[in-house]
């Protein structure tokens, strides 16, 4: 068997650069999409709790109480939204951070809460769940 002590051939850097370029190429369209109307949808147990049209300069913070006593505090800052605080143990929704584009969502499974940004159309369709 060949000795594999020699490390890092020129091609390795080429591979890394290629991967970075590809990542940038895929990411680029998401940043240049013209921003249309943006809506915030808050659903609990799949029931629409609130629907807010987002616009620059709008600032609001509100809390959604869950069935089992849990709560999530949602913060709207202009055209971006986040779950600022939650009492659930995993804090996945808080860690998701700011949502800025249509299609993005933050989910709190313990409180059965879904915060989602949508474009013009009312979204009744189920969003993708990838595992």
């Amino acid at each position, binding site marked *: *068997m*060949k*000795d*594999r*002590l*020699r*490390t*890092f*051939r*020129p*091609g*390795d*850097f*080429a*591979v*890394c650069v290629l*991967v*970075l370029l*590809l*990542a*940038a190429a*895929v*990411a680029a369209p*998401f940043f240049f999409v013209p921003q249309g109307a943006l809506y915030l949808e808050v659903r609990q147990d799949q029931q629409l709790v609130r629907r807010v049209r987002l616009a620059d300069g709008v600032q609001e913070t509100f809390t959604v109480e869950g069935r089992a006593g849990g709560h999530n505090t949602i913060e709207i800052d202009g055209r971006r939204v986040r779950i600022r605080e939650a009492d659930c143990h995993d804090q*996945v929704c808080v*860690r*998701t*951070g700011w949502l800025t*584009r249509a*299609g993005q969502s933050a989910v709190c499974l313990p409180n059965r809460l879904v915060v989602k940004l949508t474009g013009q159309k009312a979204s009744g369709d189920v*969003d*993708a*769940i*990838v*595992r």
Partner: protein
Amino acid sequence: MRIKRIALCGLFTSLALILSLVERMVPLNLVVPVPGIKLGLANVVTLFALTAMRKREASAILLCRVTLASIFAGSVTSFLFSLFGGFLALGVMALLLRREGRWFSLFGISVAGAAAHNIGQVCAAMLVLGTADVLGYLPLLLLTSIPMGLLTGLVCRTVLNHLKKIDIFA
């Protein structure tokens, strides 16, 4: 000899299975909140099998690992994602391995494999879910495939350099 090779395939399949179960315990998506993000430990076995065994054997190990991992913990969709990603990674790494030593080291090949795995996975997700939304996850997945690929490349190189001393493939 034939029996020994079959036994080795079984051995590496079980090793890959254990690795894919172990990486399930690492909550990587707490650091990078992207679904489908993985350490890619099981990819070490694919790369190792490609370098030390035949391509057919590497493919068989991959197929068995993906199938069994989905049966143990997963779903039909996760099976499809892993299958697409796994075989795209295997194909890319097999291609680059022909130029190993001169153009590429195991590090670059491993990074390319990790990136290919993520691309295949996202493509499968787009096909299954019928939406291009999941493409938004690809840039982050590709970025993470560089450190993860370097890590698996390092593991694979270390293993190969040690296994050289005990020639199990004789």
